[in-house]
């Protein structure tokens, strides 16, 4: 059962990464336009910031 000593913190840590990533996406306004974002992926023009 000693393996639990590692596994539980590891699972919490991985879950925590997910949570932090989600909080980051909320804070950077990534849910403001879900409709548009789902369609922009079809556009072949470069978007906003990641311009070449």
């Amino acid at each position: 059962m000693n393996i639990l000593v590692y596994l539980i913190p590891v699972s919490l840590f991985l879950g925590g990464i997910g949570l932090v990533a989600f909080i980051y996406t909320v804070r950077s306004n990534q849910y403001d336009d879900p409709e548009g974002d789902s369609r922009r992926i079809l556009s072949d023009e470069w978007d906003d910031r990641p311009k070449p």
Partner: protein
Amino acid sequence: MTVALHPPASACPACAVAPAALEVAGAQEAQPGEIVLSLPTIHCAACIAKVEGGLARHEGVNAVRVNLTLKRATIDAAPDVTASDMIEALAALGYEAHELDAGALSATATDRAGRDLLMRLAVAGFASMNVMLLSVAVWSGAEDATRDMFHWISAAIALPAIAFSGQPFFRNAWAALRAGRLNMDVPITLAILLAIGTSLWETALSGHHAYFDAALTLTFFLLAGRYLDHRTRAIARSAAEELTALEVPRAWLLEDGTEREVPVAQLRAGDLIVVRPGGRMPVDGEIEAGVSELDRALLTGETLPVFAGPGQAVSAGELNLTGPLTVRATAVGRDTSLHRMADLVAVAESGRANYTSLADKAAKLYAPGVHILSALAFLGWYLATFDMRTALNIAAAVLIITCPCALGLAVPAVTTAASGRLFRRGMLIKDGTALERLAEVDTVVFDKTGTLTTGTPVLMGLDQIDTREAGIALALAMGSAHPLSRAIVQAGQAAGIAPASVSEIEEVPGYGTRGIWQGQVVRLGRASWVGAVPLAVTASYLQVGECAPISLQFEDRLRDGAADTVAQFIARGFEVYLISGDSAPSVEAMAERLGITRWMAETLPADKAARVAALGEAGRRVLMVGDGLNDTAALAAAHVSISPASALDAARVASDMVLLGSDLGVLAEASTIAKSATRRIRENFRIATVYNLVAVPLAVAGLATPLIAALAMSSSSIIVSLNALRLRGGRG
């Protein structure tokens, strides 16, 4: 009529017509050079690319960003680029666009409450997944020290997570209890706290059952319901604000011979105000100088423009058509004649306030029932066993099992799906219970001018007019911006008629246009001016030299989808009425054209409202569709009401739903969607009831283990959500 001199802001058409009065103080200063446009017709990736690409090429534009969810474009541009440039550019691309007041919108730019809920939802989701992981280990057979350790770790995760995520429920429950009421949040809070409390106690005594996972999953599902609910409202609210922001509330004040642009809210009685052609009267007043024609369609439903000259009284909301007018204000803001409507609206609205939504009806049964049930379970077990721990555990299990996951999700999931679908079709639901009320409708009342018709005249019978005379009329019409002249130009050009060479064309504001053709004076204008006998229908009259004047007759253009919509409603067995303030012949013609057998003409605003109220008293559920100020009271009196986006602000405030596009075709579909949404809500309640009938006896009998609770709760929530999603069908 003496009641409600100062009704709530929502029921005050006068303040709605002059929104500046309310908003100037609160609105934040918009960023200079930022233009926000509403684009009701965009719907795909190609539209985004076309709008963004097209505007970016425009000179002075730095950046354009389209938000498809809100159907809006934000443009960052040099200060000399105006919104009307952008609207023209978009019109050239084939998109309808309206300017929005960026200042009025900035309040909703970042939706704090929604973000807050989302954050709590994320924390609850994260915690419940981790605790579930540990719980699965316990359920599959972890024993003794391992089980205790897992329970303690669960507690360490669950306690802070609940303390953070559960706050919306705790706050609502506390507010309700302090006011001495029960709402849905009271049993929810009790269930969460009791579950956490008994689980901690069990864990401390190294017991077998802990409900940490159930408490967290409960919070998660309920927050999901709350978030969906909030999102629906937020979209509706921001779109409604958008409509308010469409009207730019400014006036030109004449002071010491110079004109100055001021917010309407700053006008005082006695001020001299210049109203240009195309402008709307901001105040009640008397014309000091200038001659013109006034379009009173929004106030009275009349389609014929009215002559206006010095000394004549004007009312706020009338549209100036031809010549500039100088008006001395006699009443401003809340004192204008528009305000009289407030009485009617306030009286009419009280009738609708007693509608209880399906969810409220369910909650009223549910909240006391759950408390009594769990108290009885506690008492029964305590009296049977005199074991506090068992009794408390069972009471907690009953509360958790009955907790309104399905109930809390059933309604928001359905309304979100339904209003999302309607929003994509260009219809905005302002009121939470509007869908349910729309589903009950059996009678539809239409207004004519501006609702079934676009309010723009179309020239009729051009082919019966001599080409020579048509050419003269066309040439004269080209010299004026009057709506009837524009209609002549449009029809003439469409028919390929060449304008005659008329010289010295001049517009006589309020009367018409005149010019010289082959040495003869030619005139196009009002009947009295050219010496013709006025007809009952909208018409303009042409006189060539001293010949007898001929008439050019106009018809109001039907809105897209109007004929279809009316036909569909009639085919489905709805009673359809046409009630208008316009003259009898034109209303009758319209009714005949659309196949409506019940019509009323020349109705005053109070008559309209009374007629709608009478239908309501006769047991009919009335859907009122109208746009003018004269419809406002009727809109408020109806069971449910819809107004087009082009309607006067006051009418939109009084109605439950707003049509964003110009197509009326959505109406029939909306009624179908509302019906199926209400059916889904009832289905979901039935599913939740069946689930409770199965699960509650188990819980009361003390057979509900945390595993059973988790399974039952999750499966019922998922079933109602999936059932709600069936509504989404036909995306597009």
